[in-house]
């Protein structure tokens, strides 16, 4: 129908080409004293994502809402039972995801050209960023679970490479390893989920459109309602397990705060705007499957809410500006999962979309602060920056009012929608709603704390850093300003209170509408939308004012150990301790037993046996090994021959 579909592969291929090209250039210069010109490399690095964005826009404007492009370019793993292809699906969900992934991706790559200025690994960094974009695009553009899994592990790999980018510091390497391993643990869940679907639906279990058709086919309803229930439960459970790692939800969330060891553009792109939201994407993509399993849906809602609350509290305790934002990301992802678990997949994706803008703006703004203060990340050594960094302040302030939900900003529209949908989601709705509203107050509190500590009062760092403080170069300022504008305006694509502004919701209706209808057969009627908007605004204002009052007077002047301590530390690191007790320690004990008790004993016995053989036959040792073989072979062979002959006689 649309012949242009056969060119869909261009979108992932462009950043892949960029990654390969930049990777080769980086290798060519690796052993020289100086790198290639940053200007030309920067142009190359931004050109590929920007072209991918242009191609995406081209495709996105070529066909109306509700229609989709699909193109299968080559077979991949094809045997009788399993058939996986390199296939792409460009529908409304991937249209939305791709637009902001390539758009924000190109902007953040541009920002990093300024941010990474003078770094010896400049080209390598740009190669990784392009490789990341390739993986992320593949993840959302794929038409089947296995190719999505390729992107899924690919983004994890790039995240690993970029967290450990400054690898001469062992702490960064440790953070990178942790991210990769936690994500690997999640990836196993993803794989097992795929297997459950193959068992359930056979060859139709792998590709998204075929799976959807299979699930909606009346012929299969007796299987789905009956004996297939267990497999659906397993599939949704394992896939959700995979999501908890990638999107940093309880219990696999510990890697994300540590991931802040990477350069700040990485935190903005990978650990805030795109990669960590893949879990929400997967839930929306498979919404027709997930709604069939109310148990797992409930689990998703509860885990999402629990993560949102836990991380919001942890956010209050952080002194590192990037850690505040990291916990804030975890918390906002929790909101998205809460929405998905309540059957509001479209609201969850909407929050993914708006969050990408304001969280990227916040991270880039924080990066601008860090850049200005020559690497300082400790909020206790900031203060009064509004005077020296006015542009950065405006950017962070736009992100701040968006995330706490001041009316009209992007965060207001999406958070309001989530809260409203949670309230009407069922008998437990009001309970979840009030807990989520309390979390919204906490959000405003810790974000206001961050703003007060960084910008209010007077500067608390050394004079040296104060003199150094300067605004960022143009290549960093342009992306920040675009994203700041996005955090204020992006919500108007689905402004629920204003009639007509709902293109986002209508676009997603063909993808998730059926599942949402199945989850809520009858429309629950809650209070008027204006009441929810008022309550949400009140939460933001209350949180912000109490944050202002609390922290404007109590700016910590004493610098203790870096990071939280006492109860704050126990709260922050609770899941690290759980991982240690339930996963790391048992593995270490098992490894110790295998190595020290079993393997060494084994080797010791072997040495003993070896002495016996060699000493009793020192003559044999002088002969060649082959003679030794012959002798022993004959002896043993004879022995066994006799025993077999005896056995034969007996029987």
């Amino acid at each position, binding site marked *: 129908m649309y012949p242009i579909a056969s060119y869909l592969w261009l979108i992932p291929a462009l950043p892949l080409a960029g990654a390969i090209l930049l990777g080769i250039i980086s*290798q060519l210069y*690796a*052993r020289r004293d100086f790198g290639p010109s940053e200007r030309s490399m920067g142009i190359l690095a931004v050109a590929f994502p920007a072209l991918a964005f242009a191609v995406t826009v081209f495709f996105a404007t070529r066909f109306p809402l509700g229609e989709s492009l699909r193109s299968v370019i*080559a077979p*991949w*793993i*094809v*045997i*009788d*039972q*399993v058939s996986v292809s390199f296939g792409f699906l460009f529908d409304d969900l991937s249209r939305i995801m791709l637009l902001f992934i390539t758009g924000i991706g190109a902007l953040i790559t541009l920002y990093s050209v300024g941010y990474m200025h003078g770094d010896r690994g400049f080209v390598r960094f740009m190669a990784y960023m392009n490789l990341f974009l390739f993986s992320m695009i593949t993840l959302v553009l794929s038409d089947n679970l*296995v190719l999505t899994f*390729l992107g899924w*592990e*690919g983004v994890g*790999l790039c995240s690993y490479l970029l967290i*450990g980018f400054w*690898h*001469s510091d*062992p702490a960064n*390497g*440790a953070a*990178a*390893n942790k991210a*990769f*391993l936690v994500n*690997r643990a999640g990836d*196993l869940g993803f*794989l*097992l989920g*795929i*297997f459950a679907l*193959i*068992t359930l639906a056979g060859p139709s279990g792998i590709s998204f459109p075929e799976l959807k058709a299979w699930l909606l086919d009346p012929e299969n309803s007796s299987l789905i309602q009956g004996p297939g229930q267990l497999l659906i439960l397993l599939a949704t459970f394992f896939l959700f397990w995979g999501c908890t790692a990638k999107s940093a939800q309880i219990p696999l969330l510990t890697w994300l705060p540590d991931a802040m060891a990477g350069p700040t553009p990485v935190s903005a792109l990978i650990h805030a705007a795109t990669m960590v939201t893949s879990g929400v994407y997967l839930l929306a993509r498979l919404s027709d499957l997930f709604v069939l399993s109310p148990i797992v849906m409930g689990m998703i809602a509860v885990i999402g809410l629990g993560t949102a609350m836990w991380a919001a509290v942890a956010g209050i305790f952080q002194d590192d500006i990037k850690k505040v934002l990291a916990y804030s990301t975890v918390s906002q992802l929790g909101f998205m999962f809460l929405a998905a678990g309540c059957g509001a997949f479209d609201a969850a994706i909407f929050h993914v979309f708006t969050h990408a803008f304001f969280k990227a703006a916040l991270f880039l703004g924080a990066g601008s602060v860090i850049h200005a203060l020559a690497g300082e990340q400790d909020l206790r050594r900031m203060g009064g920056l509004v005077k020296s960094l006015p542009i950065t302040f405006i950017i962070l302030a736009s992100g701040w009012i968006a995330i706490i939900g001041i009316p009209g900003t992007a965060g207001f529209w999406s958070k309001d929608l989530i809260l409203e949908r949670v309230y009407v989601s069922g008998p437990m709705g009001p309970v979840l709603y009030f807990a989520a509203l309390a979390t919204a107050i906490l959000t405003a509190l810790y974000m206001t704390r961050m703003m007060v500590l960084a910008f209010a009062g007077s500067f608390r760092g050394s004079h040296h850093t104060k003199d150094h403080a300067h605004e960022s170069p143009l290549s960093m300022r342009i992306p920040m300003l675009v994203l700041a504008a996005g955090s204020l305006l992006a919500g108007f694509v689905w402004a629920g209170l204003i009639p007509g502004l709902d293109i986002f919701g209508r676009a997603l209706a063909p993808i998730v509408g059926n599942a949402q209808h199945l989850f809520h057969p009858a429309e629950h009627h809650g209070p008027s939308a204006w009441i929810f908007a008022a309550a949400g605004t009140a939460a933001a204002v209350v949180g912000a004012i109490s944050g202002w009052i609390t922290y404007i007077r109590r700016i910590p002047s004493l610098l203790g150990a870096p990071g939280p301590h006492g109860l704050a530390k126990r709260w922050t690191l609770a899941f690290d301790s759980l991982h240690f007790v339930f996963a790391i320690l048992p*593995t270490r004990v*098992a*490894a*110790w037993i*295998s*190595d020290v008790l*079993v393997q060494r004993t*084994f*080797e010791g016995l*072997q040495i003993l046996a*070896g002495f016996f053989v*060699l000493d009793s036959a020192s003559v044999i040792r002088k002969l060649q*090994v*082959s003679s*030794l*073989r012959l002798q*022993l*072979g004959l002896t*043993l*062979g004879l022995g*066994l*021959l006799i025993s*077999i002959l005896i*056995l*034969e006689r007996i*029987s």
Partner: protein
Amino acid sequence: MLLHILLASPFVAAFLLALIPGRFLRASLVASTGLASAIAGFALFIISGLNGSPIASDSISWFTLPGTTATVHYSLFADGFALWMVLLTAILVTSVIWIGKTCAGERYKGFAALVFLLEGALFGCFLASDAVLFFLFFELLVPPAALLISVFGGAGRNRAAILFALYTLLGSAPMAIALWALATWTGTTDGMQIATALAAIAPEKVTLLFFAFALAFAVKTPLFPFHGWQAEAYSEAPAPVTALLSGAMAKVGVFGFLRWTMPIFPNEVVEYGTLFILLGLATVIYGALVAMRQTDIKRILAFSSLSHLGLTVVGAFTLHDGAIFGVVVMMVAHGFSAGALFLLAGIPERWNGTRNIFAFGGLASQSPRFSLLFMLACLAAVAVPGTLGFVGEFLILQGIWQTFGPIIALAAGLGAILSAAYTLRMVQAMLFGKATSTGVGPEIRKSEMVAIFPLIAILFVLGFAPKLVLHSVESTLGQAPSSVANAIPENAPNATER
């Protein structure tokens, strides 16, 4: 005829090499590299001409087994599975021959000749269609391998060589007896004919024979707890030899399970399959756990090999079609990735004279080319999607889920998490962290790059186009229904005569 030439070529190469006087090092290097590449090219030529049906050579009667009425035939058989193993061996041998001058020095000629002999024995194992012929080649693997370890190895080389020889011998001696008993009872040594004739034999005896066969392959693979020789032999042998032992020779064990044990003993395979599934799982987990605590890079890789090949045995004993495809793919993938990693592991050992991973650091900034290749090989080893290893693991794990359900699949999948854990630990210790010296470090030689890069490139190319492997394997495994009896049909009459 093609198969006869293929099998004879490594032996001819070894003979030709012997004709060159020892002092012409350069000549023997050029000659052996040329010969090895020619053999690899020939194997590639045969595999690309494989059009769906297996190839069988004409069968030549050789001798009558003493004490029996069975005549041993010299006959060869090749399907996609066997030919991929042959191609894997031939490509690895080419790399090893090319890189070997760094470890063999003056004695290069002897090294190359032994490597060709080992290659010939491996070809024989993969191509033999007569059980006794297979066994002869299976035994012929040991002398060149043991000599390569004991002549060119490290400090503990003699002990490692003897340990290796003893284990293999003790493992295969029962198989010799079993073969003799089989020939006595059935009057034939042809694989397929034995399988049909065995139906008339009392099950208790057959069970005994089954275990005799299985033991030989369990030692060769190896499976826990028959792995005692492995870490020692792999770490003491010079890196290129280890690459061959782990990349190619270890495959004979799994190949033996699939090609010989399963068709001959279908009932026993079903009856005792659980035992081998459990041993395989134990091997997966045990190998990975021990690898996590090693500091010697070659020992890490040795236990990693143990763990990965354990998964192929689990896959084989699921008897699930998809999983068996996965086993073949994973054997090819592991052959190239383990080969590349062992070859790479020898390079920093040459620089610093140690194999302790903590003696290195910061290689990523000091030796960027080496680090890039090492990183890529590690990614292939942990089976990141886009590499061939992923295709293998995916197919095996889904087969395990289909046959044994989620819990066993989960247990086998733990190996994937643990493999990332020990591989990243090694990467972090060697490539990352503070550099041990300042300035530009030593770098991988051009000739080493030429030998190793193709192995890694193959893994990525096949990772995106596994069809090349799956398609040629389909010719024999494709029609295989779940029943084991015809799981690995090698019916000579159906094969085309060449």
